[in-house]
């Protein structure tokens, strides 16, 4: 969740326009779970499965609501390749990140553009990943999709790399450099942006406007550095030779009681093939950080900073003081209504498009421990209050992630968007 209202003056203006647009109507549609068709296998379609996850997670009860696929990586320009399984599909981040312990290939080092080896400290909501940037050819098994010489992050879970500097560790409340930390062997970040950082990380390392993701570590001393856009960790979808303007993550409807496993499709490209048309999906354009406004409740309160994120494992929104849904006694981060609550909210894009979504909230304490996919697990997100439409949102929907940029916004726009 992110609120834009005080980040910078341009964003304050942007928020103003967004609020104005919110009052102006625009196109409107309703999307209900159910009735959607999951695209069958094809040259641009990967299989995705939500299940308990890798065996290492058994000790923590398995992963809940993580969508896994497989990715093949190769030493650039060679047929020396490796397939990585249990790769979490994340529309809330950008770039491929693989645990070093799961990597058998020896990949070339990623450079800062001047020949110096790059390291990265990437942030997730619950921690950081630290490790070297390396370069790989990436292909998606079962499809024709391939991207060559892509900077990726190798997440140092084996302690073989220079230790994370304090400026990295202290930006988080802990490390995600493990199978448990990632809930996966790798993360495939296919969000709305082409790189994980973008323009801000091209600034000099000692510039306060540089978010500090990239490091040079000469002689084991790591300091933040600026990195040209092309040398940053890249969203692989943006580098496919075709089908490179976005993707669609699709799942069938599932039982409100949950299921042990469910499979769906990850379709590459939007409007590039006969099987990936935008069709009648509501297309919401997003602000510079990838968010829209959600309108919720009888008072029709507006919550900017809302987003769709397959890497969040629940529906996270507001709190009991705002929506009246009881939080759990055992873990107040989650909701525990006595009976399933059926709710609806309206999402508003920057373009004025409105779309009403229906969703359900179950008692998080009563969900079966032998199931790993739930469309109604929900928790709070109240700082500032907004909606994080995590993986449950994807069950029963085909959710489009449109990439930023002039070419990325095709077929109907030039900016990043979500559609469903």
């Amino acid at each position, binding site marked *: 969740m992110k609120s834009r209202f*005080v*980040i910078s003056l341009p964003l304050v203006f942007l928020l103003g326009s967004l609020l104005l647009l919110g009052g102006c109507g625009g196109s409107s549609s309703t999307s209900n779970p159910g009735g959607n068709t999951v695209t069958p296998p094809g040259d641009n379609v990967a299989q995705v499965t939500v299940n308990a996850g890798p065996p290492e997670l058994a000790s923590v009860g398995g992963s809940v609501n993580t969508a896994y696929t497989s990715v093949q990586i190769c030493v650039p320009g060679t047929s020396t390749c490796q397939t990585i399984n249990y790769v979490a599909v994340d529309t809330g981040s950008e770039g491929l990140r693989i645990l070093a312990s799961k990597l058998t290939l020896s990949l070339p080092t990623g450079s800062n553009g001047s020949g110096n080896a790059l390291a990265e400290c990437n942030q997730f909501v619950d921690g950081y990943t630290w490790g070297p940037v390396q370069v790989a050819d990436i292909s998606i098994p079962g499809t024709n999709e391939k991207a060559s010489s892509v900077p990726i992050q190798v997440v140092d879970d084996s302690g073989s790399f220079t230790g994370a500097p304090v400026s990295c560790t202290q930006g988080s409340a802990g490390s995600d450099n493990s199978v448990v930390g990632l809930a996966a062997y790798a993360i495939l970040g296919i969000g709305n942006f082409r790189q*994980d950082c973008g323009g801000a990380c091209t600034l000099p390392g000692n*510039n*306060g406007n540089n978010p500090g993701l990239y490091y040079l570590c000469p002689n084991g001393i790591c300091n933040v550095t600026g990195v040209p856009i092309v040398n940053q960790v890249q969203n692989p979808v943006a580098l496919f030779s075709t089908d490179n303007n976005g993707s669609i993550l699709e799942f069938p409807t599932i039982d409100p009681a949950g299921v042990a496993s469910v499979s769906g499709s990850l379709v590459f490209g939007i409007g590039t093939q006969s099987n990936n048309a935008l069709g009648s999906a509501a297309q919401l354009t997003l602000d510079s950080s990838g968010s829209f406004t959600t309108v919720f409740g009888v008072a029709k309160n507006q919550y900017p900073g809302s987003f769709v994120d397959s890497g969040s494992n629940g529906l996270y929104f507001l709190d009991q003081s705002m929506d009246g849904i009881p939080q759990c006694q055992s873990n107040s981060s989650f909701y525990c209504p006595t009976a399933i609550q059926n709710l609806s909210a309206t999402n508003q894009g920057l373009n004025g498009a409105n779309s009403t979504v229906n969703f359900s909230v179950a008692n998080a304490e009563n969900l079966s421990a032998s199931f790993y996919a739930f469309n109604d697990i929900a928790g709070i997100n109240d*700082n*500032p209050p907004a909606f994080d439409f995590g993986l449950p949102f994807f069950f029963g929907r085909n959710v489009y992630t449109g990439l930023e940029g002039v070419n990325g916004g095709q077929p109907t726009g030039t900016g990043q968007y979500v559609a469903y």
Partner: protein
Amino acid sequence: MAKGLSLFGLGLVCTALLLAAMPARATLGESVSTVTSDAQHLRASTRVTQASNYEVHEMQSGAATVREYVSDGKVFAVSWQGQARPDLKQLLGSYYPQLQQAVQAEKVQRAGRHPISIQQGGVVLQMSGHQRAFTGRAYVPNMMPATVRAQDLR
């Protein structure tokens, strides 16, 4: 959101706006002093706004906006938002180790990523967001002025 907006509006329009290099060394639960400066640490410009019974020290850089909420000379809350999180050890001070432990403990209870919301040892930590957009706050309920509500701390 309305609360955040009105607070911001209040600071911007209604009260004296001190755009100054005012040092605001501030760590959760500790005193405001002028010895060192979070602003320097964050390489950010600082401004101070006065709410009814507390001050907000806001440090802004392109990477993040950090606010420190001060009453009776003590920091009772901190919040942040931006493309990357700021130095949490600096902001959370003596609470950092216990919060770090609590976040790690929650992770091994339940695999899978989600926003953080932890209340432990007299402090609340909440973190949310995704790539390029992170928010968070921490506050000490016992140190909050009586009329301040959690939703005022954005």
